[in-house]
């Protein structure tokens, strides 16, 4: 009977949190819950993975991409690329749609906030290559897609959709009249 309980426990117990920091060269962001993590994983379209709704090419950059970790089949959610510019990870991972790659970055686990298997990807390597690719291409892709928004300053000050939202609803989102009142209160 003791053997039975042992076998059941072995299968039934969810995988304990593992340490994937070995060999990682991830740069710290000094985040409360960060841990360096380097691992092999398959790049997947998360909506496809969960629901079976699977377009070609993982959604061509319009869908969030996940990493199904080879070691334990856990679905890791890369929220962020390596740029400090309010930019996600989709453009970085899209070239590797459905491929198994090695990634290096920061894993976030914060039980209080519900953060589990959240990832900041800093570099990516195809398995049969020695070359790592930095996960910092988002702003270049944005510039190529927005030639009319060329100019000085960071992309988020020039993005047409962001500018349209702010022009319509203000920086605080409550409408232009309230926006001016809030700014008067805060800054004058």
């Amino acid at each position, binding site marked *: 009977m003791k053997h*039975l309980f042992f076998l059941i426990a072995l299968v039934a117990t969810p995988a304990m949190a593992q340490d994937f920091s070995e060999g990682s060269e991830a740069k710290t962001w000094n985040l409360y819950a960060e841990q360096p993590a380097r691992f092999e994983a398959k790049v997947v379209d998360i909506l496809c993975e969960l629901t079976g709704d699977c377009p070609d090419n993982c959604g061509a950059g319009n869908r*969030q991409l996940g990493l199904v970790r080879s070691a334990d089949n856990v679905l890791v959610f890369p*929220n962020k690329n390596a740029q400090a510019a309010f930019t996600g*990870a989709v453009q970085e991972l899209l070239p590797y749609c459905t491929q198994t790659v090695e990634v290096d970055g920061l894993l976030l686990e914060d039980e209080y906030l519900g953060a*589990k298997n959240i990832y900041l990807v800093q570099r990516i390597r195809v398995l049969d290559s020695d070359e790592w690719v930095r996960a910092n291409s988002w702003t270049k892709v944005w510039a190529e897609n927005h030639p009319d928004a060329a100019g000085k300053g960071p992309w988020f000050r020039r993005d047409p959709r962001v500018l349209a939202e702010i022009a319509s609803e203000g920086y605080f989102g409550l409408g232009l009249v309230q926006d001016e009142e809030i700014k008067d209160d805060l800054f004058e």
Partner: protein
Amino acid sequence: MKILSSALFACSVLSAAQASAAEGERISVKGEIIDTWCYFSGVMGGPDAVVGTAHHTCALWCSAGGIPVGLLAEDGTVYMVLKIEDSTDNASGDTQLRLASHVVEADGMFYERDGLNYLIVEEVVSDLDIQNLSHDSYGPVPPFAVPEADQ
């Protein structure tokens, strides 16, 4: 052998139960459409500072930048939003951008996988616009979100 057979049967039952936990469940939920990276990472401040009016402009930037949006429910649960009605553009999509910081009542399908919650919004039952006037406590987050704050 009998013990082993029993164990394998028990394991198969448990595995089936675990697999079914990943299947969708229909839910109705009310909450704010948030920027998940700022919320989870704390990079811009604590969780109360990265929601509502204070963080609205940053939420626009992050949504446009392809950072996943979530729905922060009234009980504190965060759902990663993968679809809103007809829009599967869950990375930098127009619908997600338009709803940044808004409180919505949503009907849809809930999935759980490896400790994260996922939501397929089938219907935005009501869009209650921005409800959390967090700028009263925090001003703009980050401060440079509003150009006047830098002057």
